[in-house]
């Protein structure tokens, strides 16, 4: 925005800024309340619920949900505290996310390349079927998939949780197909003339050319899988395979008296948000740019 614009409409500029500030506060305040509660001492939450800064600030909540607190600590004997091994849950989320993202990007890229560049009979028909697949509401697939996992004996296992996502999702294939279609075909034709086979073209030309969009897709998928709740909730209940979101849900009812262990719950939530927040802080601009670019297509 240039100075003449501001000069001719200073009020519009100020109102716009005010609206943005209000929206920023409204979006960030709940997160701040969560962070503040996580740092508050458990005995003080009821008397300091509306304070903006933590009362009796302490790291103890983080220590105890991660299982790092000394078991003999008298503070742990208070009733109303929930029990959770959140470090295990974070680790499980990491394993689950990796198990999904790595194969998914790889296979989706190959599928996208096939749809974009290879000519084979039925290509358009199969792609049309993919389009229809995206129209099926996810909820409809939960029961058939659950039965399949039960038959395979994959309940409460990592492979059971990862299976529906590990090969591909229609979005990944779409996204990458768009990217691949956007590159001029001359590069591949030149390589083809020089004797390169399909696999060489794929690995040596297409992938290196699209590291940007592959990275974007990896980030978006990782964030989605890190936060994934319902499918892991159905399949992975056992504390040994519980992912972060499922563990938090279970922790909600873990304290006996009926009221949730608020400080512990908030500590878990904050820990769950941190990886995504870091990812977006460092790569956020890149992600937004990539999405804008594909949208412009």
């Amino acid at each position, binding site marked *: 925005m240039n100075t003449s614009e501001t000069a001719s409409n200073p009020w519009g500029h100020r109102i716009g800024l005010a609206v943005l500030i209000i929206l920023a506060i409204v979006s960030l305040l709940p997160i701040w309340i969560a962070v503040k509660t996580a740092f508050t001492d*458990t*005995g003080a*939450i*009821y*008397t300091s*619920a509306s304070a903006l800064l933590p009362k009796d600030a302490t790291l103890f909540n983080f220590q105890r949900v991660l299982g790092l607190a000394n078991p003999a600590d008298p503070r742990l004997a*208070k*009733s*109303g*505290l*929930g*029990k959770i091994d959140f470090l295990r849950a974070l680790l499980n989320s990491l394993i689950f996310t990796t198990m999904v993202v790595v194969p998914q990007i790889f296979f989706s890229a190959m599928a996208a390349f096939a749809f974009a560049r290879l000519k084979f009979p039925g290509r358009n028909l199969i792609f049309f079927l993919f389009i229809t697949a995206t129209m099926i509401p996810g909820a409809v697939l939960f029961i058939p998939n659950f039965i399949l996992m*039960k038959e395979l004996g994959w*309940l409460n296992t990592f492979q059971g949780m990862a299976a529906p996502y590990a090969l591909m999702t229609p979005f990944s294939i779409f996204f990458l197909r768009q990217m691949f279609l956007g590159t001029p075909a001359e590069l591949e034709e030149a390589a083809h003339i020089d004797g390169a086979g399909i696999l060489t073209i794929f690995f040596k030309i297409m992938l290196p050319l699209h590291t940007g969009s592959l990275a974007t897709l990896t980030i978006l998928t990782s964030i989605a899988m890190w936060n994934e709740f319902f499918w892991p909730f159905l399949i992975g*209940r056992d504390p040994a395979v519980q992912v972060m979101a499922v563990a938090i*849900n*279970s*922790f*909600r*009812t*873990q*304290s*006996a*008296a*009926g*009221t*949730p262990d*608020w400080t512990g719950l908030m500590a878990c939530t904050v820990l769950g948000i941190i990886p995504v927040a870091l990812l977006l802080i460092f790569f956020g601009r890149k992600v937004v740019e990539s999405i804008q670019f594909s949208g412009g297509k």
Partner: protein
Amino acid sequence: MVASTVSAHAATEISYWLWDTNQLPAYKACAAEFQKQNPDITVKITQTAWSDYWTGISTGFVSGSAPDVFTDHLARYPEFALNEQLVDLAPLIKQDKVDTGIYVGELFKLWSKEGKQYGLPKDWDTIAIFYNKDMMKAAGVDPATLANLDWNPKDGGSYQQLIAKLSIDAAGKDGTSAGFDPKKVKQYGLVMPGNPDAYGQSEWSHFAVSNGFKFNDGLWASKFYYDDPKLAETFKWIVDAGKKGFIIPAKDCNENNAPGLFAAGKGATILHGSWMINWYKENCKFEVGIAPLAKGTDGRKSMFNGLADSIWMGSKHKPEAWKWVKFLGSPEAQKIVASYAVVFPAVRQDVDTAKEAFAKKGMDVSPFVEEGTDPKVTFLFPVTDHASDVVRIMQAAIDRIMLSGADPTSTLKSANQEVNALFQ
């Protein structure tokens, strides 16, 4: 030469589930004692959060991985029994000559249906008034008078006087003075411990039953009496007292935040169950007192609820599971649990152990004990079939009364018809 091995067969492991983290140490101690007496059995205790517990049990029934023994609940066991997932303990009790007269009140009966027994009682709970001692003092109320409150649906009796006196508005006026502003209350006389539901265990059942209402004709009845005018007048009183500013607005209260509201000083009293004693002790910065419920026209009434341990029909170690359940139902085990001051044991002779254990922690729990052991005071949790549907129908009706201002008489009448139709 073949070395003759005295077959010390490997210890049988039985699995036991519970949901209460607070009771885990007590039950671990019980397991240790049990294993000392039965060296060939090991008990593996698993604690699962409440929201995952019942789905875990039901899924376990279906997939064949349910625990051998588990803590059961009155609202759930009828369905399990109907689906033949629970072992009938009656023949085992007869065979081992277990004394079933040692339990408080009718707890044992609560867990039986048509001569079959589905659990041995392990603990009980009932309802009383928790109050903020500082606020009582500030209002000039002598705690000794709390033992003799009376209530009626017309003018609320001395109970309403009490919560009116304890309600203070922003200008400092209490609910008994003329200029009290119900819209600007900063301290409420009463906090309801949650959204009233079909059974109103803590919220309304004691008011209604002390007024002459009864849920049905007894355990496993197939007809409810929710359309009784005595219940409608109870709800009318609750809604009116709320409008007068003596009770925290229903929309601001649910079971998650109600105890927190009391701990934060938003209310002077809260009606709640004995399972909350430790929570209030530890989370309130002020001293918490306990008083018995007010007396209605039929006297003092409080809902009596109790847990028991059930054995899964699909268990592969039923004899060992029965030994564990028998132990848990015995005075010896319940004395151990009582000494941890978390719950009141079902075995009558061990109740005093719990009372002393609570006293050692600084809580005088005699109102609970007196209510719980008085058969004239306690009334049973209404165990019936179709529990989940009853809850669903009544919850919608009661929400309409409490949150949308619907007329109690007509709403309860149509809801009662729906409920009774379930049993047709």
